[in-house]
């Protein structure tokens, strides 16, 4: 295929009237990438941290996600159990082996049946952790990794995501900075804004097309927030 590569790049350069090797432009592009300047950022996220948390909740609820805000990680089992009970959903959790979630003592709610690991087709409720929440649009950011199977975000009918308020940022750009600080780019970064939906039949919105039918966010207040 390298013949095609040479031809495509050659035609691009011919069309642009550029020479084959152009160290100057290469350096300029590399510099722009290294600096990754921010573009215009909407003013709606110019808020203090608590304002951003509230904006995040409002935006997530606008797209049919539900949010339970709790005081500490110890409250997560109750929040999850109550959510499932209210909707008469089976209390069978598949929990991502994430260090944050591993620290949860699920035995506080004995009716919850908890398994740890990746998603299997028969799993009904997936529990995952987000590394950030973007207030601008109520968007959760999840990165794949040894403790974060991507399938868990898509196969189960019910998706529960645990997010700490310290993870809430204003615009997407702040989430990218956090991602860069975490190290090399993971295989998958999922930006999730509400449950799965489709408008393909007569432009009427239906939730739960192929991914989760419902998205529940357990937002945990963190002292450092």
């Amino acid at each position, binding site marked *: *295929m*390298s013949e*095609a590569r040479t031809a*495509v*790049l050659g035609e*691009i350069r011919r*069309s*642009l009237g550029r020479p084959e090797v*152009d160290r100057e432009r290469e350096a*300029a*592009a590399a510099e722009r*990438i290294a600096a*990754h300047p*921010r*573009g215009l950022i*909407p003013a*709606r996220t110019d808020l203090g941290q608590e304002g951003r948390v509230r904006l995040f909740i409002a935006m997530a609820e*606008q*797209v049919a996600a539900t949010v339970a805000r709790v005081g500490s990680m110890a409250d997560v089992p109750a929040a999850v159990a109550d959510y499932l009970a209210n909707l008469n959903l089976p209390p069978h959790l598949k929990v991502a*082996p994430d260090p944050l979630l591993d620290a949860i003592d699920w035995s506080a709610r004995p009716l919850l049946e908890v398994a740890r690991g*990746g*998603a299997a*087709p028969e799993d009904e409720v997936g529990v995952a952790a987000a590394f950030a929440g973007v207030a601008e*649009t*109520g968007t959760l950011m999840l990165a*794949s*990794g*040894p403790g974060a*199977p*991507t*399938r868990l*975000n*898509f*196969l189960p009918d019910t998706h529960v995501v645990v997010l700490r308020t310290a993870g809430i940022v204003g*615009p997407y*750009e702040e989430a*990218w900075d956090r*991602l860069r600080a975490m190290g090399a*780019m993971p*295989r*998958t970064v*999922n*930006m*999730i*804004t509400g*449950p*799965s*939906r*489709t*408008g*393909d*039949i*007569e*432009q*009427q919105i*239906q939730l*739960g*097309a*192929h*991914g989760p039918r419902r998205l529940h966010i357990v937002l945990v207040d963190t002292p450092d927030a």
Partner: protein
Amino acid sequence: MQPTSAAFKQRSRQAIANPVLQKALQNIRPGFQQKRAKAVAQLPEFEALRDEARDLKNHVLAHLDVYLQRFEAKVQESGGQVHWARTAGEACDAVLGICQAAGATLVTKGKSMVAEEIGLNSRLEAAGLTVVETDLGEYIIQLRHEMPSHIIAPALHLTKTEIAAAFMQAHVDLPADRPLDEPRALTDEARLMLRQKFLGAQVGITGANLLIAETGSTVIVTNEGNGDLTQNLPGIHIVVTSIDKVVPTLEDASTILRLLARSATGQEFSAYTTVSTGPKRRGDMDGPDEFHVVLVDNGRSSILGGPTQDVLRCIRCGACMNHCPVYAAVGGHAYGWVVPGPIGAALDPGMIGLEEARHLPHASSFCGRCEEVCPMRIPLPKIMRYWREQTFTRKLDPASARYGIGAWAWLARRPRLYHWTTGLAARTLGLLGGRRRRFKWLPMAGGWTAHRDLPAPEGRTFLAQWRAEEKRRARAGAP
């Protein structure tokens, strides 16, 4: 894909006479226009973001070779492979080669307009592979053996009744008396049927809305989550995309993403925006073992640097077609190629040739709505005008039109003769118009009078009336 754009006129006539299509097209206003207007109103920075996105994409196009090479290097660094393709055929070869090397029999596919453009499905099927479209709209039209009629809502031309009939026919293992009259039931049935496919496929093919040079990532934007199941469950993920999709950084991607969902579906953000980089990493619990990017040119590098280069800024949001009165009247199939509507009229002649696509730039009332809503500020009417001129200079339009336009041009360059002739015509038609002052039929105007009467002129041209009025005012001493 084999274009049928040359039959635009005939297909438009059929489209206008098709009651099912006309009913389906009525969903455009509430489904797209109103939602977009609301979403745009919620973002005061929308206009400024359009300027930024235009400038950003112009910058990338001016240095496209450099950014593509950088993207390629980063894909390789993260363990993926890039396959360059000059033509549709080369792109299909690349995909088929990967599938065959893996011994694949079942391939799932997320929605990709580039895959439609290169005719990927028929090529893979001819080689004995089973290809399943997983986007609900694409799945529906695949069952009906149709092509998409809209770039973001492929089954826009159908109502739920046709969709239910297609499901009844295809899903023979389900009880024949099941209720299927509501979108909910149809959506659930597709979910059930496609789950098995997601789990069984060896290769998953997606498109890409953006490519990021900084990280070597591909980005897909979906609402259903089908693209994610497609790329995460099988062992091989192939991204079929084109060279015009690259942006430098994650920040640049954010600027475009702020415009995309708002312009397309009127959402603040789509449900799933997924950034994929390379195959799964050591220790990862899931994800594909192989990651391939097929970078398709197929004529784009020749459009670059030319008079229609601006079409390469397109992010395929569909807003221009959602606001086009011609599209709303005839739907997408009449255009006869993958990209319909105003962007189709501006892009397709450069991709499939002006000869084939020559009618499309004429399918415009020049109302300017497309340019008004285009998030990337593509001057669509200007580009259509350019193609119209080319149609004329390359002598591609029929003789009657050429002589008509030629004669008019000759006359228009001779103002006195022009006014005398038009004055004569106006007086004659005024007299002939009779008491009803309308024509039911006129020689050489059948295209107009077949559908409506032509009002007879008042007997004098506008200029003649203007002069008379000026004189009257001067006499009356008015300013």
